[in-house]
């Protein structure tokens, strides 16, 4: 899976879960202020990402640092890359 395919998969999965428009899903948007997610949503975001990429990330400290959509893209790409090595 290319990095763009990973980004597309993330965006589509989150758009479906949180009823977002794909064209508003730019890397620099805040998932809280701009996309309107809250702490309950971030719990479900982790579940959605785990389902989409078949990995476990719930206990990873970096998840708590996520602020923007770009942070999610970077985190997932890094995770997938690390697991493929």
């Amino acid at each position, binding site marked *: 899976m290319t990095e763009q395919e990973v980004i597309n998969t993330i965006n589509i999965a989150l758009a479906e879960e949180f009823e977002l428009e794909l064209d508003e899903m730019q890397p620099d948007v805040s998932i809280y202020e701009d996309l309107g997610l*809250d702490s*309950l949503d971030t719990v479900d975001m982790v579940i959605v990402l785990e389902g989409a990429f078949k990995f476990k990330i*719930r206990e990873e400290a970096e998840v708590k640092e996520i602020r923007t959509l770009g942070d999610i893209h970077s985190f997932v790409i890094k995770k997938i890359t690390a697991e493929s090595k």
Partner: protein
Amino acid sequence: MQLNRVVITGMGAVSPFGPTVNDLLDGLDEDRSAVQYYEALREVQGLRSLVASQVSGIDPKQIARKHRRSMSRLSIYATLAAKEALAQGAVGPELYSSGQLGVAAGSTVGSTETIEAFFKDYFLDHSLERMKSTLFFKIMNHSCASNIAQTFDISGRILAPSAACATGSQAIGYGYEMIVAGHQQMMLCGGADELHPLTCATFDVMHAASTQFNDRPQQTPRPFDADRDGMVCGEGSGILLLESLDSALNRGVEILGEVVGFATLSDPGNIANPDSGVMAQCMRQALAVAEIEEQQIDYVNAHATATEQGDIAESQAIATVFDHRVAVSSLKGHLGHTMAASGALETISTVDMLRRGRLVPTLHLQNVDPRCADLNYVRARSDQPLTFALKNNFALGGVNTSLVLRRYDHD
């Protein structure tokens, strides 16, 4: 502590006839049946009752995702009904968070559909890792009341009565008592349920569900009729805005009716079988609270679900309490049994009957079961002056409720 008169200033209905009060009243006025055959029920092994009345035509996306994410269908129905009631009552955001508006609303159980979906996934590998954060808010017993309050930013009291088929009327009664006692100025009151095969099965296993009309769904259930063979399960939500008379007059809103009495009591004789004497006791208590004589009641809106035992017991109880020819009908023939919503949906119709002076007959009642008491059963639409009505609901688990309603005459 002050005692207040309690009036109805808003009503909302999501019923098998559609998403508004007008849809409900139109369906009743036109003597339509909301009951249909559902092929999906045939897939449930052992289920014999394949007829039901389901809600259609709603738009859940009227509710923002932030609020809808914690809702199953029953809370969606309740929230849409509450929205309609609040709009009719001209209650806006300044009153939502005043602390003077509370919620009394319940369901038979939390969302069975959600519980089924959870355990279906859980049993795959006994993992909780796929459990969504909002699961609990859909299955908790106060899901209906909490979701209404969260959606409208309501900051008053929350009551979540749960008494199966008596839930809706019990919620109205408890809301009424809150306002009478001066604890709240307004209460959103009612009930909601979502249909699940388990609901149908619950009554089917007790031989209380209609099983012989699967090929003629529009002819069942048949309250009080000799050919009735049981109840038909339904779903929906009814919500009424109750308000102190003083508050309603101060706000200058239209008053739709008045709640003047309420009684609820336990029938400990049997958890499933009704007792005619205890039903009569409940009606008498409600009349005593209303401080009126039984002769003043013009109409009884019966619980009458078309079960063999229930209809006989209730008819005998009505005959015991009312020695005059009080008019009696049940709306289950039109709507099926909408469970926790039934008390509220049927109260909404009863309020409308009082306002218009027009009684809705019992659909499908052709030949009264000779074992039912000799009553003035309403068989056809009937126009007559109406002042007081009594509304019954009786629930599995031995919970009885009776409400007394009065037409409100503006001075």
